[in-house]
């Protein structure tokens, strides 16, 4: 199986989860309140009160065959709003 790790702004979580569902992934998990740093600078939780939020970490375990549709759904969103994604291998436990 494949494991995809996405880090995006909390504002984009709903959009991304819709994309993941449409790509046909069997499931996903979301962890909010993630802070961090990347090309777009540092993200803290300080603006959380404003509804801007921090980052979220989304994990998707899926079959290799689903990688390509997921990529097609997700890359445009990462391109437009920022965020990064990584993939590695895993097995069902």
């Amino acid at each position: 199986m494949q494991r995809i790790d996405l880090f995006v702004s909390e504002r984009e979580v709903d959009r991304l989860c819709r994309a993941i569902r449409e790509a046909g992934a069997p499931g996903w998990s979301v962890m909010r309140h993630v802070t961090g740093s990347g090309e777009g600078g540092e993200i803290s939780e300080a603006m959380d009160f404003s509804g801007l939020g921090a980052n979220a970490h989304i994990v998707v375990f899926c079959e290799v065959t689903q990688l390509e549709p997921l990529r097609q759904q997700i890359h445009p969103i990462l391109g437009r709003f920022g965020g990064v994604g990584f993939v590695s291998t895993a097995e069902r436990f």
Partner: protein
Amino acid sequence: MQSSLVLQNLLSPPVLFFFLGVLAVLFRSDLEIPSPLPKLFSLYLLMAIGFKGGIELADIGLGSKVLLTIGAAIFMALAVPVLCFYVLRLKLDAANAAAVAASYGSISAVTFITAESFLNVLHLDFDGFMVAALALMESPAIVVGVILAKLYSDKGGDSATLRWREILREAFLNGSVFLLIGSLVIGGLVGAFSAAGVEKMAPFTEKLFYGVLCFFLLDMGLVAAQRLQDLRKAGSFLIGFAVLAPLVNAMFGLGISRLLGLPQGDALLFMVLCASASYIAVPAAMRMTVPEANPSLYISTALGLTFPFNVVVGIPLYLTLVQRFIPVR
């Protein structure tokens, strides 16, 4: 500017707690108000101020005075971002200029509340319906900002087309806008039809208000001070803008207040609405609708400099001008 007013403002609990937050950052204390507590305070303040405003609106009714004031407020929320945009374009690209301009066209509820508290302490009257002006100034600037960003966008094609549904949703259904307007309407209904409801809510919306404001300003102090450090990177143009824009916008507000014949308290609040910049509804909306803009620019100017400037210096300064140029009734 009367120095006694400045002092009185500086020594008010909300402003002092704001400074405490700033000091915590400067001294690198590990004081923090962990998320989602600031959100709790902000939800409470919006709900309480909306509800109280609604009750007073129900009391007064939507007379021509009220409608004129609200109309003027909406006009300013449309005009200010356009003006600011052209100034900002001198140095920024379209997306960033539009996003910053939208902030300054919109309002900061906490600055407004701090001004109200200041008036309360000085025993100066103001009308409760000014909250309606506050509520209705949040969204228009967002729409104007998005339109400007798209009109002047360098890129053509898809990214320049306006997604109206999304924009309107961000402008009018943003959580904080929705809660404020919703509470205003609820306050209006309860004020009109349920005396018992008014009475039972009073302890909640009244007794806690000032203390929660202090708590929230403590957090704003922490956040603003962190943002101020970002602002240095943003350069002197934006720093200058963040101080001059509120002054200029306040002057417009003063002029209109005089034209409309607003009483002193309302005039101060109107100036504060014009002078303040949004760091709640607007950033959240811009992040979605103008993602090309750099959030650290519009948040840092509005929250790192304009907000403290208004709260610490602006409010007493505007009041001095009000007392000079607006006749007492």
